[in-house]
């Protein structure tokens, strides 16, 4: 089976105080193989980010299935136990945004190494890999042991991407990671994504400027705001 197979995935929000349901997307079906890169396209408000969040289970899908071929067995992301999703997030599924959540007194290096440690790696080794990652994203070495709470926006983004892309994952969900990056960082990101793709990592991404990653795209899921003609376009 493919790495991910979504069938009739639907998301509606029920807002209690409005006594209203808001439809985000409905009956979406698509599949994704290892090493494939799928762009999620569509106008603002068409539910692109919501789709990623449903797969990561930050949002609860209203109906449908999303079968994920995990190393531990096939599991439906839409209905799996919370602890199973938490396990997949530590080991197999990553979510990449443009925002870093720095914590006081945690150095850039530690912040980047943490996902590896959470996956079971020893600190020493994790820190070594974190150094390489920060180096490849071009963060000045003088800042590695400093606290990102005080960093500039651009420096924080380098730490953020290093952290989000350091651990081995089977599936990466990319929520506009290139937005507001400078040219050099965007370039490092493109390199890292091609490297991951070549290693067989599957990716689903929302990009404001898809031309940044045009050469990586294998196919596209187009969401339409009207929701009447949600379709899957493969090329």
């Amino acid at each position: 089976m493919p790495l991910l197979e979504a069938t009739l995935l639907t998301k509606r929000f029920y807002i209690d105080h409005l006594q209203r349901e808001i439809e985000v997307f409905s009956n979406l079906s698509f599949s994704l193989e290892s090493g494939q890169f799928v762009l999620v396209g569509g106008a603002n408000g068409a539910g692109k980010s919501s789709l990623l969040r449903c797969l990561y289970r930050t949002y609860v899908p209203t109906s449908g299935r999303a079968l994920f071929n995990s190393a531990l067995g096939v599991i439906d992301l839409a209905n799996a136990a919370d602890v199973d999703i938490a396990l997949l997030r530590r080991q197999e599924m990553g979510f990449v945004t443009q925002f870093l959540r720095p914590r006081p007194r945690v150095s850039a290096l530690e912040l980047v190494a943490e996902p590896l440690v959470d996956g079971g790696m020893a600190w020493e080794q994790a820190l070594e890999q974190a150094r390489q990652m920060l180096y490849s994203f071009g963060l000045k070495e003088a800042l590695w042991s400093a606290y990102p709470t005080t960093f500039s926006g651009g420096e924080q983004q380098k730490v953020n991407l290093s952290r989000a892309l350091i651990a081995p994952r089977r599936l990466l969900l990319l929520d506009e990671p290139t937005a507001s990056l400078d040219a050099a960082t965007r370039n490092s990101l493109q390199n890292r994504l091609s490297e991951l793709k070549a290693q067989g990592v599957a990716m689903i991404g929302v990009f404001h400027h898809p031309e940044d990653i045009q050469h990586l795209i294998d196919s596209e899921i187009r969401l339409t705001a009207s929701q009447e003609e949600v379709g899957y376009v493969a090329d």
Partner: protein
Amino acid sequence: MLDTSSRPLSPRFEPPQLVTSPPIVRAIGLHKRYGRVQAVADVDVEAYPGEVLGIVGESGSGKSSVLRLLNLEEQADSGTYLLNTPVLEGQDLFALDRFRRREVQIMNIGVVYQNPHLGLRMRFTSSGNIAERLLLTGERTFATLREAARESLSISEFPLNRMDDPPRVLSGGMQQRVQLAKALALRPVLLLLDEPTTGLDVSVQALVLDTLKRLQRERHMTIILVSHDLGVIRTLADRVMVMRHGRVVEQGLTDQILEDPQDAYTQQLVHAKL
């Protein structure tokens, strides 16, 4: 009572398939009444090894009562409570006599209260507070006690040059670190935190949270954390249970509860606080 007919039911997910280890904490069907108040009604709590489970809810929702039951401070009116350790496996802790219960609590559960007066002797030295915990296990050698206290304070990031000061002369943040050191001294399998940073000023709160996060990562402790502060919950908890009127109204992954709450009350709670 909530009217459940007018809204979609909370999602029911499958039982765990990928996580094969059993929960380390398994408390089922907890009930507790104080006089006419049903403080806890039919609450199940399950926590897996190395997980941080948050319990949120407003004052009077029963969240601290649940914690007191889990700390074996009080007897439940009904329910069972299992801690899955080699020694205790299969044993309902509520069914133990009070001496054995006290022993199980000391050896397996650590607790940090919002109010340090509940957890510490304010006029003893800080190191003495921790040594006392070890005395309960039969340790009597002064050097060993002192070394253990030092180690425990050190991992809690307490400044060791103040280890012989009594908690009453320490700041609120420091007092919480002494409580934490005491809670961790016997390497409990379960750490219970009851509003551990409420009342501390924001910068101190961040530091204490950071210590907790570090310790959790390094020791893979199972933590159950009660807080009404969603920021604290977001920082520490992997999963969250939302309580109201003594019942669990919703539970889920922390980000899901905060970003896509399913229950009407949770929606209210989240939107009021963010």
